[in-house]
């Protein structure tokens, strides 16, 4: 036992040190040199107000009662911070860039600065915080009572001490004073409180050191060795299989949500943040802090269970263990640690909540009913400060009230979890607001309200126990005896009350948030805000102000700024805004600046209603807004366009490559053609030359020999001429010149003409020409001689290449649906598959040795037929021999010429 005077004295000294630190911090910040105040270390230590007395005392209690469950409360935040890159970074950046003052402010600002949403969030936060503050008061009172208990610690531990509400009252009063003195001295931009943060950081160090000292003392002095530590561990620690079920997951989730959504956590993590560097360091340093806090929880719990009489309150093991061994210094340190963790939590919570209450509840109501004194600028400012101070007292004493009402039956952890579940209701709106454009204020309102009501019904109201706020009969049997409405087993789902409450509240919250958002349209302002918040990492174009066009008289705007910000700052703001004294109408930019500056002090929705009261006209350019909001859509379209273009380019490149390939092939063909022509010319030329040489050098040649040589020379010359004629022909046809004499004629006549010409050749080769069918009354438009030339070529080819023993060539003409079709077939060897594709090219010749000619015949024939508007091809799939098919468009004799022209 420690004398009460000593304990009180130590506490007062400690508080005095905190005052000094807070004062020094404020002084430093006021002189503009934040230095270590905004270092990542101080930032991280301030976040560790997450570890309240619930952690300091309750973690051990929880470990002693139910094993590893306590770890979930710290693993959830560890995961959230280690994963800062995904969510926390965006949240913190939004808060920093848009000067958010609280979680209610962020939610209301995101959904179009909706005042109702801000008020709703504030009410939820205040009610959810009450159990948590009560928890701190309870821990402080209990620890004070135990450490000063007359019969000594062992007796204190095993006695159910009735809470001493006098102690609780004075503690609450003291906390109010501290919070008011350092938390509500001025209405600052960003609501940053350097002094308080400095004090909180000191407290964070004290509680960590205290717990570590006790832990080391327990392990080495009480237990002796690590192995001995777990020798007599309770079943929940040695056989932990049942711990890791739904409740484990629920606790991890709740803790992860709470470390973001608790108003005080939001305050230190988001509002007090001044650079990304801070959160980056906190991403590992804060988990490390939690790790160290938890390191000795199990050893202390086991030692408490083994060394203290059974029935001792495990929530106070941290204190009663050193006391039972007369380690008064360690006990005092433990008490100070608990004192630190409880006071820092209450102070920051009450500051954060008072800002919310004044910005989202008091100010909107005061403005609506003109309760704000407007006579002097000073009046408004002191009204706001007064409202905040009153709020702090209200919040702390709300916690005190909860403490009195809920009695002393609950374990610390159970009370804390009620708060966690309450503030977790913010999560859907917060996450949805930062990532989902379609989320509307209607969805946020519906989700928040429903989630809050279910939480209140299933968890908060039953937490008071029987007959306080909810009759015991309702808790046990449901209202009006409807058992499916039992608060802790809705629709008969009867599992762990916490899991039950979390499931139903989050399920309905998320479902309504999404459902109502889908069914409703965001207001233009909400659309604008969603763009700012969701795209916070994208560079915002300077055109942002052009979305909102407002006009206001400078005088009116100035009056508001004077009232809220104070004259000095207002002058500064207007000077920076480039406003001369003679300007009457404020620019959009200045109005936005003033609103932004006000919002940093009184919250977005209040600032908006203040500015709106003097704005004479306001239009939000919906078109402009849509354009901006759809920027992402535009980027998507743009990239699709790019993709399409690159596909087009690829296609063009492929076409070019194909064309190039074709050109190369043609080039090769041309070269081949040239060498063929030279070759063809060279052979007759050579014989002409050699024979004329012989004739010249040997004058005394026999006459018959000379005649033979001369005939050879003549034949070769004729062959040469014919070859050159062919080439000229081909060239002429290819170049489309000159004009042929065109007339209407019967194509059968051309066949007759060709057969006549070939008769001699056929007879010489012993080939039988057969005329199998004739088309009657066929009439085509073209040049008969040219067509005859084609048939001559086809028939002579058929004769020349026919090596059959009984060679025949069959020619048939038919009329088929206005098309004249002639077929020239033979019973020769046919054309091999490999040759089929190239027989119509120049100098292509059949593979037979008997063949003569330049190989231009088919090429010329096809050119002629094509020029006549027909086709010439090789028939497919003939068993023996080759068959050429020639088709030509016919002209009905009644409408002769005009139709033929177009053919």
């Amino acid at each position, binding site marked *: 036992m420690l004398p009460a005077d000593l304990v009180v004295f130590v506490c007062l000294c400690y508080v005095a040190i905190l005052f000094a630190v807070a004062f020094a911090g404020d002084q430093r910040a006021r002189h503009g040199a934040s230095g270590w105040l905004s270092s990542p270390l101080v930032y991280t230590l301030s976040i560790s107000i997450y570890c309240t007395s619930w952690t300091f005392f309750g973690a051990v209690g929880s470990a002693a009662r139910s094993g590893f469950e306590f770890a979930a409360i710290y693993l959830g935040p560890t995961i959230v911070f280690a994963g800062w890159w995904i969510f926390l970074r965006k949240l913190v950046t939004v808060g920093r860039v848009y000067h958010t003052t609280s979680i209610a402010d962020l939610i209301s600002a995101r959904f179009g600065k909706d005042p109702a949403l801000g008020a709703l969030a504030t009410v939820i936060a205040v009610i959810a915080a009450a159990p948590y503050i009560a928890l701190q008061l309870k821990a402080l009172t209990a620890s004070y009572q135990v450490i000063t208990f007359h019969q000594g610690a062992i007796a204190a531990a095993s006695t159910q001490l009735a809470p001493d509400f006098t102690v609780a009252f004075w503690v609450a009063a003291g906390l109010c004073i501290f919070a008011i003195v350092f938390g509500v001295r001025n209405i600052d931009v960003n609501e940053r409180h350097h002094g308080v943060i400095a004090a909180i950081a000191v407290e964070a160090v004290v509680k960590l050191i205290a717990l570590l000292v006790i832990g080391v003392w327990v392990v080495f002095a009480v237990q002796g060795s690590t192995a001995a530590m777990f020798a007599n561990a309770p079943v929940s620690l040695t056989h932990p299989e049942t711990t890791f079920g739904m409740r484990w997951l629920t606790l991890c989730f709740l803790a992860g949500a709470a470390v973001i959504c608790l108003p005080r956590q939001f305050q230190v993590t988001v509002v007090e943040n001044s650079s990304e560097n801070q959160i980056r360091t906190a991403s590992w340093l804060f988990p490390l802090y939690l*790790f160290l806090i938890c390191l000795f929880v199990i050893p202390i719990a086991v030692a408490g269970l083994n060394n203290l009489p059974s029935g001792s309150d495990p929530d106070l093991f941290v204190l009663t263990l050193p006391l039972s061994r007369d380690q008064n210094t360690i006990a005092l340190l433990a008490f100070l640690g608990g004192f630190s963790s409880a006071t820092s939590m209450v102070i920051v919570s009450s500051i954060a909540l008072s800002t919310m209450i004044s910005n989202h509840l008091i100010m909107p109501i005061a403005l609506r009913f003109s309760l704000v004194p407007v006579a002097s600028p000073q009046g408004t400012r002191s009204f706001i400060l007064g409202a905040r101070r009153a709020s702090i007292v209200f919040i702390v004493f709300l916690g005190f009230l909860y403490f009195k009402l809920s009695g002393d039956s609950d374990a610390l952890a159970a009370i804390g979890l009620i708060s966690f579940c309450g503030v977790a209701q913010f999560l859907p709106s917060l996450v949805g607001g930062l990532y989902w454009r379609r989320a509307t204020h209607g969805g946020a309102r519906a989700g928040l309200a429903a989630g809050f009501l279910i939480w209140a019904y299933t968890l908060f109201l039953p937490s008071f126990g029987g007959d306080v706020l909810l009759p015991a009969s309702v808790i046990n049997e449901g209202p009006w005896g409807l058992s499916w409405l039992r608060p802790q087993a809705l629709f008969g789902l009867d599992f762990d009350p916490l899991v039950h409450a979390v499931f139903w509240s989050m399920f309905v919250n998320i479902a309504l948030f999404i459902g109502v958002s889908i069914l409703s349209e965001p207001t233009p302002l909400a659309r604008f805000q969603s763009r*700012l918040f969701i795209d916070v990492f994208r560079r915002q174009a300077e055109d942002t*102000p052009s979305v909102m066009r407002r006009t206001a008289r400078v005088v009116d705007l100035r009056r508001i700024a004077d009232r809220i910000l104070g004259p000095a700052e207002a002058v500064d703001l207007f000077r920076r805004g480039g406003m001369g004294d003679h300007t009457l109408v404020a620019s959009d930019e200045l109005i936005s600046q003033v609103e932004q500056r006000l919002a940093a002090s009184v919250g977005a929705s209040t600032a908006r209603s203040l500015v709106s009261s003097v704005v004479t006209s306001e239009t939000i350019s919906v078109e402009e807004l849509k354009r901006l909001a759809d920027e992402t859509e535009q980027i998507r379209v743009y990239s699709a366009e790019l993709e399409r273009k690159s596909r087009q380019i690829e296609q063009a490149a492929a076409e070019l490559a194909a064309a190039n390939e074709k050109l190369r092939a043609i080039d090769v063909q041309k070269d081949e053609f040239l060498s063929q022509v030279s070759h063809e010319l060279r052979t007759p030329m050579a014989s002409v030359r050699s024979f004329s040489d012989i004739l010249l050098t040997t004058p005394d040649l026999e006459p018959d020999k000379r005649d033979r040589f001369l005939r050879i020379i003549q034949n070769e010359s004729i062959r040469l001429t014919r070859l050159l004629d062919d080439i000229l022909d081909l060239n002429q046809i290819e170049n489309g010149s000159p004009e042929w004499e065109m007339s209407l004629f019967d194509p059968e006549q051309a066949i007759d003409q060709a057969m006549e010409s070939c008769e001699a050749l056929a007879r010489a080769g012993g080939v039988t020409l057969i005329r199998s069918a004739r088309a009657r009354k066929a009439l085509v438009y073209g040049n008969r001689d040219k067509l005859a030339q084609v048939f001559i070529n086809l028939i002579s080819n058929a004769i020349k290449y026919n090596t059959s023993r009984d060679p025949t060539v069959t020619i048939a003409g038919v009329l088929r649906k206005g098309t004249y079709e002639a077929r020239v077939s033979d019973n020769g060897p046919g054309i091999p598959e490999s040759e089929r594709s190239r027989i119509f090219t120049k100098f292509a010749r059949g593979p037979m040795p008997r063949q003569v000619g330049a190989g231009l015949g088919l090429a010329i024939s096809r050119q002629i037929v094509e020029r006549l508007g027909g086709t010439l091809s090789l028939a497919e799939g003939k068993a023996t021999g080759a068959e050429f098919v020639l088709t030509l468009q016919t002209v009905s004799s009644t409408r002769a010429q005009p139709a033929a022209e177009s053919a």
Partner: protein
Amino acid sequence: MSEADGEGREASERGIRDAASVLPFLATVLLAPPIILIFAAPVRLAGIPLIVVYIFGVWAAVILAALLLSRGLAHAGATEHPPGESGPR
């Protein structure tokens, strides 16, 4: 600095960002059933229950990973900045 260096650095920066995004999910999987149930067996390592070693081991590993990633992100994230600290409200 050659272009290849720049590309390599960019790729490794992206790798760090991806790893930073994966870390919380990995930690969740390791600390949630069914994985955690594997280590919930009543086995002791040097007198300490296996589950204690496992939970605190994973915890320490996550902290270490977060530390290394935050070092990496300090360089990688430097290129990506939000707009001026005084955006419109």
